[in-house]
């Protein structure tokens, strides 16, 4: 699927939908994304009543429960501002699955359609709406980029992260083997089929490490939780005290590279 919305003219205000994973597990990534947007002269609004897009229940076969949670998010963005989401996966849920989820409820379906048109994944928003040209202030560095399956196949925004990293003068972006393959997270898949999920993340971490990059960056914290969680586990197993594969959200990396 590709991005269907025409980028608006540069907005003054945006909403920020952090996602429950960022709020609870990667708050620094959320702060850094907000700071990046603010530096571009954007006023960032964080509706405090936001919780989760509802995807965990949706993909697990519990659409009624997902609908309850999603219905709450529908009410949080009253002004006609873009809603920026630092995750391809949660953005994909809100953009592409909300309209389906509320297909039988005309009032909410209209709200979902209207919201869907305003949903932007962060890197897509930075590149295609703000025309963000990061000025690299860091030293030489090699990173490897992992793009989530939702960002790639549902949102069609797999190129914008690479584009942002590519415009950093002293950053080399390494190419991993089987780049487009899933890291094996898949929400509840990781605990319902731990053997298969474990094999997938093992292969993913090996491929990322084999590039020799000093860190992995990604625009999706779900994948990072899985990838970094496995890399750290492997380090523990093999008695390493420093992480063999550090990683962070692309917003944090971009902010650091563009700060003095």
């Amino acid at each position: 699927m590709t991005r269907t919305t025409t980028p608006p003219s540069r907005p003054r205000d945006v909403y920020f939908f952090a996602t429950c994973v960022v709020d609870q597990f990667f708050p620094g990534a959320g702060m850094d994304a907000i700071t990046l947007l603010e530096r571009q002269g954007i006023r960032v609004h964080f509706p405090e009543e936001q919780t989760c897009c509802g995807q965990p229940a949706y993909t697990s076969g519990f659409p009624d429960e997902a609908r309850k949670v999603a219905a709450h998010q529908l009410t949080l963005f009253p002004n006609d501002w873009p809603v920026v989401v630092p995750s391809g996966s949660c953005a994909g849920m809100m953009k592409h699955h909300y309209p389906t989820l509320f297909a039988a409820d005309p009032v909410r379906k209209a709200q979902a359609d209207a919201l869907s048109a305003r949903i932007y994944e962060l890197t897509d928003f930075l590149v295609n709406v703000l025309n963000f040209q990061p000025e690299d202030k860091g030293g030489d560095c090699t990173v490897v980029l992992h793009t989530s399956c939702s960002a790639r196949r549902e949102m069609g925004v797999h190129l914008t992260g690479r584009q942002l990293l590519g415009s950093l003068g002293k950053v080399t972006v390494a190419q991993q083997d089987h780049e487009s393959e899933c890291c094996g997270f898949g929400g509840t898949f990781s605990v319902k089929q731990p053997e298969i999920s474990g094999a997938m993340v093992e292969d993913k971490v090996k491929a990322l490490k084999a590039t020799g990059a000093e860190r992995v960056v990604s625009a999706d914290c779900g994948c990072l939780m899985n990838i970094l969680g496995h890399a750290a586990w492997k380090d523990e197993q093999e008695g390493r005290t420093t992480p063999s594969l550090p990683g962070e959200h692309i917003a944090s990396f971009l902010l650091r590279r563009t700060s003095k």
Partner: protein
Amino acid sequence: MSEHILEFKPAEGFRARSKAVVDNPFLRQSFRGAMDFLMSKRAAQFPDSEELESLRTLGESIRQYNLAKLPTLLVQLEENLSRNGIQVHWAETPDEANAIILGICHAQHAKLMVKGKSMVSEEIELNHAAEAAGIGALESDMGEYIVQLAGEKPSHIIMPAIHKTKEEIARLFADKVEGVDYTDNVDALIQIGRNVLRQKFLEADIGLSGVNFAVAETGTLCLVENEGNGRMCTTAPPVHIAITGIEKIVEKLEHIPPLLSLLTRSATGQNISTYFNMISSPRKAGEKDGPSEVHLVLLDNGRSQAYADEQLRKTLQCIRCGACMNHCPVYTRIGGHAYGTTYPGPIGKIISPHMLGLEATSTMATASSLCGACGEVCPVKIPIPELLMRLREEAFTAPHADPAMVGQGAGYSWLMTSVWKGWAAVYRSPSLYGLATWLGSRFSWLMPSKQGAWTSVRVPLKPAPKRLRDMLKERGE
């Protein structure tokens, strides 16, 4: 179908079978290599992504058009096949299909059946049924022949023996084929197979084949193959029996070229298959070859159930190219046998529940990260991830009246449902979410170091000491 014949028990031991493969580095490497090869072959066939996209859209619309007209097309097909002298039989279940085929065999006093590649014949476990009735059933597709010699089932719908190395095949031939010495020369191995089979084509009383497309307006059965064994099976023996699912129908001949092109390019990365057979009648008076009887068995086996539901009907768009398995990270990790169903991989996960019921297959629907690679390559745009989510819903919600599927609610658990209800209660309420996540961040040291399956290969999850909302408050929002 009687228990002893149908051996598929996918729900039992799926995780154990997956683990056995995942823990075997040799198999892991071998599947990875094979799938990489197939993916690159397909990619080379579609250098132009716009052409691919428009061809996929065309393929999807042809399949949807024909499915929409399926009831009338089935009638039309039967009329035109009958007019052409091809006898049509209808089977609702695998048992019925086997009974029909064995009935034809008995009428011929048949001793030997040679088989072209047919997944539907695997679906009904015809070989077992034939053997039980004292009729030899010999696979003549090289991959199927290998699998049959080994006493196994196909692990892939297009490449049945993809799980075997050439050394394994060499040992198998040396052990099982009379008068053969060990050789791992692939050409020599193929020649051994050909020599055995050539004689059997002449001896066989019955030739059995599948069907890739049945054309309603002309009454023609089309068969796509590479080895010529399909042509031998359908021309050399005195009787040809074709078997296929009721969904494999197109109305017009002109529907075939785009589907055929999508099929061969997606399946094996071939521009076109070596053989394309069009069978439109038995031997006519004055003709020198061809079978004197041609039969078509049309099998339902759960397809009507899928057909009756607008969303699930999309499952039947499938043209059996196998690209979804070649691109599936799960199939790549566990191979075809772990699934325990005739059809493995993504297509297997969405079609098997209609054939075997959700009781036996609900676990399979969970064995996907919903990465979408299958849907992305599907030549007829079956939305496989969407269908997997639907099957999860069918499996896990409490049994209700008038279900869309046999086995609806088979995976229902009061506990799991309560967990999700509780989750929704918290996540729909800002105050409960606030409280729960605040507690999580303040007492993250209480998080257990073992978190079930998650920590089998990962460090435990631990909420950050401050939530994003706390950080924003401190900053003075």
